[in-house]
């Protein structure tokens, strides 16, 4: 197959051409209450040809590589029809590399039989459901993805990469009178069934939390000093700031770019944010991005100042910055775009107790729901919160959303905890045009953080 790709590249007259071929098998198991909802195993096979001619892209996605030279011709035809464009690519050193999976056989999730996996997750789902009369439903889902990618381009880069992702979540839905609430907990691994087995330890907590939550009071909206737990804080930095760091969101927009000039103050001195795919074995880790650029680790905010952003080769060239290895696609149906990898708030000096001290009237907000951003404005839902009165934690509160303007909110982060924690499951969605690319494997990480003056919405 590598020869087929190389020949097709050699036969193309494009200024730049890259070909990706991908073969992914995916096993999925989910339970809803006592019933298995699905057990399935699917295969996604296909690729794309992307060419650059006179500064314009042409792209063809396909399932059948037998006619690769025709597909190349089709992509070239599209690029030519697009006329003269302004795309240039940042220089990178061509690489040839093979990335193998290095996993202990006995602990390889792929070697655990479907039977054992189903039994394991069934047991979890049953335990949640049986734990209380107030719990009306439970859910467990698990997806295991084994991906093989061949990538080559006309500059001589040639990669053969294997990657494994396994992740899932468990949830409990509780009801008390008319209040229905759910609590979720995620788990995941890049290489170890033992990591997945740790899901077992979360059952009791999830059940206790949902029972607290259905009895909780709805929040009264307003502005609060809040402490975010690492899970929610990770979602916050990902949604509110991370997406804004994606260079394709700003590169064609001079006015927004103006607000995103490197060196601009974004937070207080103790506040730093990083992103990078080069961390070992995290959910958003990879050796090379989907343009064959080596992953790296970069400050997005350093000591309060804007320090970097996430690039494809295209955006790096157009903005005169260094490529960062953040060109990613969820699969062969889409061109790579600027995406996050492992994004996190760099831990600081503060303990949770220090953060609580001196809050007369605040909220400890826990657990991330989904989020939404629009060029600096953000809103996302939290799972639940606890009241803080005079530095002490009080009762539970439900149904909250947080929203604001990220440029203001980041500056209001006055304490950063010392307890960094990264997500091991979940994914990131980003739309290009009308098409949503979801879910992409990323991790969101943070310690506890304290923010002044956050807008909390509720009923």
């Amino acid at each position, binding site marked *: 197959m590598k020869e087929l790709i190389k020949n097709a590249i050699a036969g193309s007259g494009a200024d730049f051409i890259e070909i990706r071929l991908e073969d992914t098998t*995916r096993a999925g*198991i989910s339970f809803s209450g006592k019933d298995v909802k*699905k*057990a*399935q*195993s*699917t*295969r*996604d*096979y296909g690729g794309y040809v992307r060419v650059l001619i006179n500064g*314009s892209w*042409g*792209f*063809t*996605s*396909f*399932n*059948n590589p037998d006619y690769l030279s025709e597909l190349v011709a*089709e*992509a070239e035809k*599209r*690029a030519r*029809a*697009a006329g003269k*464009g302004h*795309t240039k690519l940042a220089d990178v050193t061509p690489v040839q590399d093979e990335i193998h999976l290095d996993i202990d056989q006995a602990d390889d999730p792929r070697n655990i039989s*479907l039977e054992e996996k189903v039994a394991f997750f069934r047991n979890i789902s049953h335990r949640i459901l049986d734990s209380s009369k107030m719990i009306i*439903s439970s859910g467990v889902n698990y997806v295991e993805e084994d991906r093989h990618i061949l990538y080559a381009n006309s500059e001589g880069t040639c990669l053969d990469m294997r990657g494994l992702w396994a992740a899932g979540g468990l949830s409990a*839905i509780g009801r008390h009178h*008319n209040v*229905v609430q*759910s609590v979720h907990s995620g788990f995941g691994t890049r290489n170890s069934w033992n990591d997945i087995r740790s899901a077992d330890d979360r059952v009791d907590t999830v059940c206790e939390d949902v029972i607290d939550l259905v009895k909780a009071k709805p929040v009264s*909206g307003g502005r609060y000093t809040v402490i975010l737990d690492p899970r929610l804080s990770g979602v916050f930095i990902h949604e509110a700031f991370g997406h804004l760091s994606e260079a*394709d969101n700003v590169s*064609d*927009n001079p*006015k*927004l770019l103006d607000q995103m000039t490197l060196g601009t103050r974004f937070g207080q001195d103790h506040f730093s944010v990083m992103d990078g795919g080069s961390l070992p074995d995290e959910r958003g880790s990879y050796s090379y991005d989907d343009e064959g650029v080596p992953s790296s680790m970069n400050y997005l905010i350093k000591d309060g100042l804007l320090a970097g952003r996430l690039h494809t080769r295209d955006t790096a060239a157009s903005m005169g910055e260094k490529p960062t290895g953040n060109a990613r696609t969820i699969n062969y*149906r889409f*061109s790579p775009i600027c995406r996050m990898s492992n994004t996190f708030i760099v831990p600081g000096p503060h303990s949770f107790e220090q953060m609580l001290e001196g809050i007369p009237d605040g909220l400890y907000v826990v657990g991330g729901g989904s*989020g939404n951003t*629009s*060029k600096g*404005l*953000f*809103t*996302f*839902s939290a799972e639940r919160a606890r009241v803080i009165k005079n530095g002490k934690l009080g009762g539970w509160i439900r*149904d909250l*959303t947080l*929203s604001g303007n990220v440029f203001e909110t980041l500056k209001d982060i006055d304490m950063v905890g010392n307890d960094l924690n990264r997500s091991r499951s979940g994914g990131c969605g980003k739309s*290009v*045009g*009308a*098409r*949503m690319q*979801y879910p992409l494997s990323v991790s969101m990480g943070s310690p506890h953080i304290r923010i002044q003056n956050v*807008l909390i*919405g509720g*009923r």
Partner: protein
Amino acid sequence: MEKIIDLAGKQAQKAEVYRIEKDASPACFLGGKLSALEGERSVSTGLRVVVNGRLGFSSTTHPDEVEGLVKRAVDSASFGPEVDLSLPTHEKHYGQCGCYDEKVANLSLKDIVDTGNEMVDIVKTDFPDVNIEAEVSREIHKVSIMNTEGGNVSFEKSIHQSFLNVLLMLPSDRAELEDTRTTTNLTDAPQDMARMAVWRFRHCKNVKPVQTKKMTVVFTSLGFRGLFVPMFYGFNGELASKNLSILSDKLQDQIVDSRITLSDDPTSPGLPGSCPVDDEGVQTFRKSLIEKGVLKGFLYDLQTAGKSGQRSTGNGFKKSSLYTGFSIDAQPNPWPSNFVIAPGDISREDMIAGIKDGIIVDDLMGAGQGNNLNGEFSMSVALGYRVENGEITGRVKDVMIAGNVFDVFQNNLRAMSSEVYSEDTLFGRYTVPWITFGNMPVSAT
């Protein structure tokens, strides 16, 4: 497909093959300029089998894979759910039916690019400084579904889709609009969407303050996105049968204002979710969900129908979650096709003219993030306008709205426009009038 059915039929009591061939060509515009012409040519196959009463599933996009596909599906059936699937038995080849328009199929690359440029020009004429991202796409889908019970159906569908993201940067502020129009026939929806964007931004030149209080709130068709998700969750047959829907046990009850008639209508020509059969080959039809305020039914696919002693309503669509669209590796779940609210009796202009003190909610952040099972919504208004004494007087900012969708449709409904608009969102497709609610809590932030 025959090969797969034959092989699967030997190992399973029932088998069903779903195949979709897609030919798509989107043109992408960044910064108002054509940036890429893309294309997808794909063939994807899904296989469901029932072995010993249990459901197995697999899919493949490999062009030649037969044995592997069948093996994975059969293997997974050992652990799958117990099902009672009454697979359809009719044979019909709908061909280029009501959801196919030759004019869409015949669009050239140049036609698509021209349409995109037209949209950009319409917006730029009034707002030369905005940043525009746009996409125009033409897609042809050929769908075939075949099963071991004699069912054998196929149809072709054409899709004309346009997308617009416009960002207006003001001195200390920005306004962003994102809109998608999808039709199965060739219409001037793209140009109309661009003209609508101009209408929207004309009201963004100044910001009008809003105080926290109860007031009149208009949801445009775009703004309805925030009500759509908590609303359709109520009609999910699976949730209803498990007593998880807020509408469980309320069949034939008056659940909302008697002016509301809501249907799921996959038969309406041109609407994006229209199709002669669903993704399980079940013939689709228009069904009332609410008639004059009374709850009439829920949406079922084959599996949930079998479980709850109902018939499929032809709403089995291969979409696995709120945040994903159609996917070959998703199994069918009950989703709306085209969610349609019947129009009211007042024009949009008269509707606005009758409002003394209120806001228009046009685009939202946080749609779908409330407690959907409870019918609750809680969102911030990303794009909205102040209405004072019958006139739109400016943009509103930093406003949140929250409530329960069934409560507000019961207690707060004031008016619905006689015009209806179709929106194609990530969550699903719907056609609705602009809707006015009175006395709704609005919190200024």
